[in-house]
């Protein structure tokens, strides 16, 4: 309880630092701009922003990236309401109900609920976040090398097992990512490996360059395949009115439900904001006195969906920071940002660097306060921002990504690495290989190898140590179950015949192919 209150107090204390506040404001605005464009992805927005953290310290970097996510999760629903196209996949259900309200002339009501439910979900989920992350991080005291290896492996299998359509391809992705992490000096024997005779590879590949290439560059190249504008009709800002009290009373229950489900589902590794928002929407419908309104402009549906989206981010952050298991690709990027500052993702993260937890609390809280102050105004001007040419955004995002990657170590070699993995990542994305699993492999690979070998060393060369230690055995069993679940799901989906000849030929969007946090 003491550490719980201490974490909240420390996180709040960060907000008295003007630089920290400036970083949060910049992050939130970045997220809003990234989220407001239909068809974008949270991974792309966070990926482009990630290299900028090279000028920040660890807590600032975490706060910056989290405020980007808060901004995205708020703004991705604005185009859903205004043009019926979600900014990111987790806002699909808001598009269904919000756009109907907009067409009926109730734009203010729809935008107001998006605004209020997002803020509500954000504030309440921070309490959940600290309440869960503290006891989980205390488990770290039980961990030695074998347990650390098992936890890292669990993180990998969570992303692989829940990767989507092809578990075999996800396994390849993870193995390739882990193999890339082996490049450079062996951590125990200090001999060079897989350096191809290049001196730039003596210290290994820069994980930031690889991760940005796999997750961000590949996604932009994929999006460049299609050029089409979003038509935003003329909307009179003065006609957008804030919802009245009766509406606000109706959304309180679904917003609380959405927040709770968002956190709980977000905690599960591999579960995404999409899963949280879908489940919250269905539960809100089941508990509603007016279920017939769902899908036709339900304010309760929007409230549940929005609060779940925001809360799932805090939930997702719990395993990421507490035990080093990221829930999806955006959390992989946050772990990548930590490696940039010399921090090792894993169960010992909070134990060794508690300031990261405080920074995360400060970031989530600051972004929520900032959105509370200017979110309504942003919602009203969203229509104009959403109309910006998508082609321009994509090209400038690419240019900015490259200069960002260069800036991390002022190395053109890193830019080349980023491009190579961007190219590989593009084909992986298109052909069903989980890029998030590969990126996570790159981040955790070094740790997995070191802890495996150290674990065997402390057991005098015996592999039995991984099954004789209770925590290790349980965690490895859990990893095996997750993998088995993924194999079973894929096997069942392959046996099921497609409902129509077109099914399977065209899938909805990139984000459905693998777990994405937000």
């Amino acid at each position, binding site marked *: 309880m003491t550490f719980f209150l201490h974490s909240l107090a420390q996180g709040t204390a960060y907000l008295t630092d003007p630089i920290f506040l400036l970083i949060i404001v910049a992050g939130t605005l970045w997220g809003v701009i990234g989220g407001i464009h239909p068809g974008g992805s949270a991974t792309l927005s966070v990926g482009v922003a990630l290299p900028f953290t*090279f000028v920040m310290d660890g807590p600032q970097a975490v706060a910056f990236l989290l405020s980007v996510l808060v901004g995205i999760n708020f703004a991705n629903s604005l185009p859903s309401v205004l043009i019926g196209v979600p900014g990111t996949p987790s806002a699909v259900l808001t598009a269904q109900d919000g756009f109907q309200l907009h067409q009926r002339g109730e734009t203010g009501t729809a935008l107001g609920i998006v605004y209020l439910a997002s803020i509500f979900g954000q504030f309440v989920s921070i309490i959940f976040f600290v309440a869960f992350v503290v006891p989980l991080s205390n488990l770290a005291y039980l961990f030695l090398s074998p347990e650390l290896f098992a936890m890292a492996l669990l993180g990998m299998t969570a992303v692989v097992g829940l990767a989507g*359509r092809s578990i*075999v391809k996800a*396994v*390849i992705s993870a*193995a*390739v990512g*882990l*193999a890339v992490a082996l490049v450079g000096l*062996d951590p*125990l*024997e200090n*001999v*060079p*490996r*897989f350096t191809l005779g290049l001196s730039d590879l003596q210290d290994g590949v820069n994980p930031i360059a690889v991760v940005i290439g796999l997750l961000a*560059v590949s996604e*932009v*190249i994929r999006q*460049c*395949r*299609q*050029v*089409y504008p979003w038509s935003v009709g003329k909307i009179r800002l003065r006609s957008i009115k804030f919802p009245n009290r009766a509406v606000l009373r109706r959304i309180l229950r679904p917003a609380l439900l959405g927040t709770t489900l968002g956190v709980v589902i977000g905690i599960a590794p591999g579960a995404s904001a999409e899963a949280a928002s879908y489940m919250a929407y269905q539960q809100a419908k089941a508990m509603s006195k007016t279920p017939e309104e769902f899908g036709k402009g339900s304010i309760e549906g929007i409230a549940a969906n929005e609060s779940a989206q925001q809360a799932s981010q805090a939930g997702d952050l719990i395993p990421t920071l507490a035990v080093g298991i990221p829930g999806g690709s955006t959390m992989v990027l946050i772990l990548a940002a930590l490696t940039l500052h010399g921090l090792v993702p894993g169960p010992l993260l909070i134990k060794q660097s508690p300031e990261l937890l405080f920074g995360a609390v400060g970031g989530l809280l600051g972004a929520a306060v900032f959105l509370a102050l200017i979110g309504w105004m942003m919602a009203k001007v969203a229509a104009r921002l959403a109309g910006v040419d998508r*082609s*321009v955004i994509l*090209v*400038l995002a*690419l*240019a900015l990504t*490259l*200069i960002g990657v*260069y*800036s991390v170590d*002022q190395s*053109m070699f890193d*830019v*080349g690495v980023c*491009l190579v993995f*961007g*190219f590989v990542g*593009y084909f*992986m*994305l*298109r*052909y*069903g*290989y989980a890029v998030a699993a590969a990126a996570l492999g790159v981040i955790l690979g070094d740790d997995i*190898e070191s802890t*495996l*070998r150290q674990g*065997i*060393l402390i057991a005098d*060369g015996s592999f039995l140590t991984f099954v004789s230690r209770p925590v290790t055995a349980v965690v490895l069993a859990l990893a095996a179950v997750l993998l088995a679940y993924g194999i079973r799901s894929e096997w069942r989906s392959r046996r099921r015949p*497609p409902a129509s000849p077109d099914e399977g*030929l065209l*899938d909805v*969007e*990139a984000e459905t*192919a693998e777990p994405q946090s937000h």
Partner: protein
Amino acid sequence: MDKRVDLTVATGFLAFGIWLLVASFRIPQGSVPDSIGSGGVARILAVVIILAAGYLVARRLVGWRRTAGATVPAEGSSDNPDHPASARRGLGIFGLLVAYAFGVRYLGYPIATPIFVGVALYVMGVVSWVRLVALSVLYTVVSYGLFVGFFGVLLPLGVLSTWDYYLWFHF
């Protein structure tokens, strides 16, 4: 998705796995070797990749005749079905990126960037010359000012390196 490209990608991973296995045996021995060794994890990963990619290649080849044409159900991310897609445009932009990376090195950031942004925007369908020039110049100036002036990054100047005193904001 195109089954031929799918097969090529799987074959690429198979080749990578074989290379990894071969290369793992060439790692020099350290002075204090452990039971797994420097190449042990790499060998495990290589075997996993070879088995998994081999399975994908075999599965695709065995079922080759079962699907008429080159298109098979998608396993990755597809395009928005309501709009035309161009693989050439996507890969063309990637080609421009590679050229840009070389251009930054030899021409310098202030020259290569507006050229890249302008050409890439044109490829993406922006045809107004005013917009092309304005966006290219504006982006270059703002990004240069931000990274050099604010973040203190020394961007490559290429042929402009003799002007470094002025371009690195020493004033």
